[in-house]
């Protein structure tokens, strides 16, 4: 895999997305009706997320970037 370069591209995209949107910062409170809906929550349900991560982190080499962390050897 060519992950080192992919990693750098990902960081650049992340920064560009942030810089490009700076002029739009400041969605007003009355404009947040849609953003406040549960289907727009980027964190999702904490208990569901913990269960999903518990399953996936024991079955693939990658972890993290999900807002959860924990131990356990997952030996099986």
């Amino acid at each position, binding site marked *: *895999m060519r*992950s*080192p370069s*992919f*990693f750098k591209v*990902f*960081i650049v*995209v*992340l920064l560009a*997305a*942030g810089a490009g*949107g700076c002029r*739009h*910062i*400041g*969605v*007003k*409170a009355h*404009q*947040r*009706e*849609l*953003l406040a*809906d*549960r*289907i*727009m*929550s*980027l964190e999702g*349900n*904490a*208990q*569901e997320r*913990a*269960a999903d991560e*518990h*399953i*996936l982190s*024991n*079955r*693939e*080499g*990658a*972890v*993290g*970037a*999900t*807002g959860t*962390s*924990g*131990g*356990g*050897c*997952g*030996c*099986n």
Partner: protein
Amino acid sequence: MRTRGTHSSCGRTLARWLAFACLIGGAGRASAAEVEAAQRGTLFLEPSNIKGNAGITVIHPQTDVSATFASGFGIAAGYAVDVVSGATPRVFGVRNDATGRPVDAISGATKFSDVRQQAHGGLSYSRPVGDFAASYSYGWEHDYRSHAVTVNTRTDVLDHALTINLSYTHNFDSVCDAANVDTAGIPLARQALTNSNNCFKGTADVATRSLNIDAVEPSVTWAVTPRLALQGGGTALVLDGFQSNPYRQVDLGRAGARPQETLPQFRQRYALFLRSAYAVPAARASIQAMARVYRDSWGVRAATAELLLQSYMTRFLLWSLRGRATAQGGAVFYQDAETYFLHGPNGKYWTGDRELSPMQNFLTGSQLTYLHIPEAGEHHFISELDASLKFEMLFYRLDSVFAPNADRKYAGILQLAVSARF
């Protein structure tokens, strides 16, 4: 192999926690702004395509209760169990345990069962522009113990347009291992743990190895437009300690050496992610997308993409569809069972862990959620009630028939959850 779990003890513990949860819910209701209780059960089935091999079954119930008081203080507690049973290969190799003749890599599976339990509790303080939380969790099973402390802070800036989140977790874990006092530090001489009967009892045949984990997770969430939210962040994990599966042996070379799996003491793991949510009000729906890249000091590199569609079928019924794909390369010291047998190890580390092998996995599934939300002006003891049913399939694609767990091609995940706010 691991000792049998005590299911009745597990049930009694769960009942005590439920009683405690009800007590908190009842007592807190008078002065709390909000009390929430959630119960979730997950059934994970990963069958084997070898006749007579049970594969893996995990039953994972979770209970969580939280109360947020008008002053801004909050309290949370929870309990989770893993009841794990099935069969897993004791030796990662290409020869039959009994005859020594070549077979496929996974025929020698040994039956086992175990119960893992975890209890956690935490305190939080919320302000209008942010909050702070601290929690502690204790996990235990026959051969593993884990203490974890987490602190988390969240701050809203620029009139709530940006939310900055920072989380830190430290684990103080202990792993049971064979004592291996006569190996003189030679990895090839290390013997695997045969069972967990004497773990954490101070007997001479077993030893307790430590594993410390530090995890830092920063993230920023940005309300870009009235219909679009973005989130970016990352994770840095540093693990220091015993990380091998103490029971696993690896068949190395034609001379018949079968030492315990040996992994490096240190591992640094990094991940970056970008997530977005876009509202489609005309369809009463949202589209969420996530991309993640990962690399670690063992040479594993991975990329993950996920898409989640959610839509209100009616005011009370929410439907979602999820697709997820991950591709990863293997650890630098990983080899499949045939290569370990024919050529021996590549260096001083060897493993039979599927998660360290080159692989891809694909997850897809759907969830249906019933939402009970009273009309404005109505007052009920339960102010909100959710009940959901989720089913997902996880498919594995390994790069060799001699890869670990090559007999398990897929897994099914069934989840049932109920949560209520008072």
